[in-house]
């Protein structure tokens, strides 16, 4: 599996979303962008949500910590957590090398697709990153 970062959707807060059909359900896989990871640097801890938890679009679903600071993770879409990447918190050093495949964080069963309309495509996200330097 290899996710193409140019085909993903992005939140202003630097999370990426990959939406796929699975058994008649829309499933969102969520991670954080390579740009954001470069800014964070020296990751030491990640807190994941519990499977079964329902999260609203824009709600905090976990946090990632670098040596210096804690950064909340915001869910770009709403839905129920169906899977979490349990190996990730113990292998944060791999996240920088592979943010879009190994670096997936949670999968949500989407309950409201309208939030997807607020997200950016890759070109718009790249523009945001360039502007924020």
């Amino acid at each position, binding site marked *: 599996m290899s996710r193409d970062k140019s085909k993903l959707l992005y939140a202003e807060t630097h999370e990426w979303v990959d939406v796929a059909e699975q058994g008649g359900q829309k499933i969102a896989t969520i991670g954080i962008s390579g740009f954001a990871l470069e800014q964070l640097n*020296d990751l030491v801890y990640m807190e994941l949500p519990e499977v079964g938890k329902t999260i609203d679009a824009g709600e905090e679903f976990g946090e990632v910590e*670098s040596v*210096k600071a804690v950064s909340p993770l915001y869910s770009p879409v709403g839905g129920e957590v169906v899977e979490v990447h349990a190996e990730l918190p113990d292998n944060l050093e791999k996240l920088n090398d592979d943010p879009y495949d190994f670096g997936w964080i949670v999968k949500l069963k989407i309950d409201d697709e309208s939030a997807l309309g607020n997200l950016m495509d890759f070109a718009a996200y790249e523009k945001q990153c360039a502007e924020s330097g």
Partner: protein
Amino acid sequence: MSQADPSSQTYAQTPLDAWHRSAGAKMVPFAGYEMPIQYESIVSEHQACRNAAALFDVSHMGRLRFDGEGSEDLLDRLLTRRVTDLPIGGVRYGMVCNEEGGILDDVLVSHLKTPSESRYHLLVVNASNRAKIVEWIKPHLDDFPKVTFSDRTELTAMIAVQGPLAMETCKKLFSFDPSRLKYYQARITDQFSKPAIVSRTGYTGEDGFELVVRAEEATRIWENILLAGRDAGFAPAGLGARDTLRMEAAMPLYGHELDESVDPISAGLGFACNLDDREFIGRDAISAVKSAGPARVRIGLLPEGRRPAREGCDVLSTHGQVVGKITSGGPSPTLGHPIAMAMVDVKHAEATEFEIDIRGKRSPATRTKLPFYRRAKK
């Protein structure tokens, strides 16, 4: 992830600003300056300091000079530490307190002699407190008409070189060997063809020295030291590594462990108060705390697991009662696990087990002796 806060405020720049930018440093606003928080990685900069040496631009710290008769008496009035018996070449750590014993700043005072044999005192203050301390000093100058007070911060730069190889490597570079200084000694040299102050002091728990040089000389000297130590593993280090290093060494930081609501005794800095040899501002209040015992004290905690406890987290007893707050906390790159300092109610300070409320989740923590890290003595 959150967005960077765009700000139109302008910040001062240190004389090394252009160098930091060309080296790709990530610059952040800090105490009115734009300062490098890191170049490549906080962890690798931290390790360079523990294993070889790191260079820090600390030009943002305030450098206040007192010349003329009465300087020592003025400083004796302002500092918790006696200055009148500080020999030439001596450096002392102390605090400036208000009448209530609250800490206005923690400072280093050096007694220096210029090549033309005139003597002066240099007070190094925290960047965030410089304006406050200058204002605090001014009204006292009326009582000491022969004292000339000058803020030298913007005319000079300050460079810290810290690490086990700092002395050995720089011996070759300087005409004056900095290892001839004992810990907490300083002298003026005509190093680099211009006057410079070299002191054997620092803020990382490592051996090393700090240089005060003319602003226009800063980049040349910085580059010379970095080049001399390149093969040994010297690296420039930002504020991020400076913070993790000083936390491991359990050195207090103003605005975290120290502020105007904390007295030196509660902060565990009673050693830096000479209470019995003279009057000074705050002495009576500090003496009273010393006799009665402080209400809260600074302790070290080891949070269980990998999740760091950060500043502001509540510290609880094992019975769930809030007994204090984390003042500094984060991962320790040297030790490989989180560390934290806390101010806790003195009645609970002797307990060995605590809990920390890390943003809504309680996590166990064990009390430990400070510092967390102590360098091996040669």
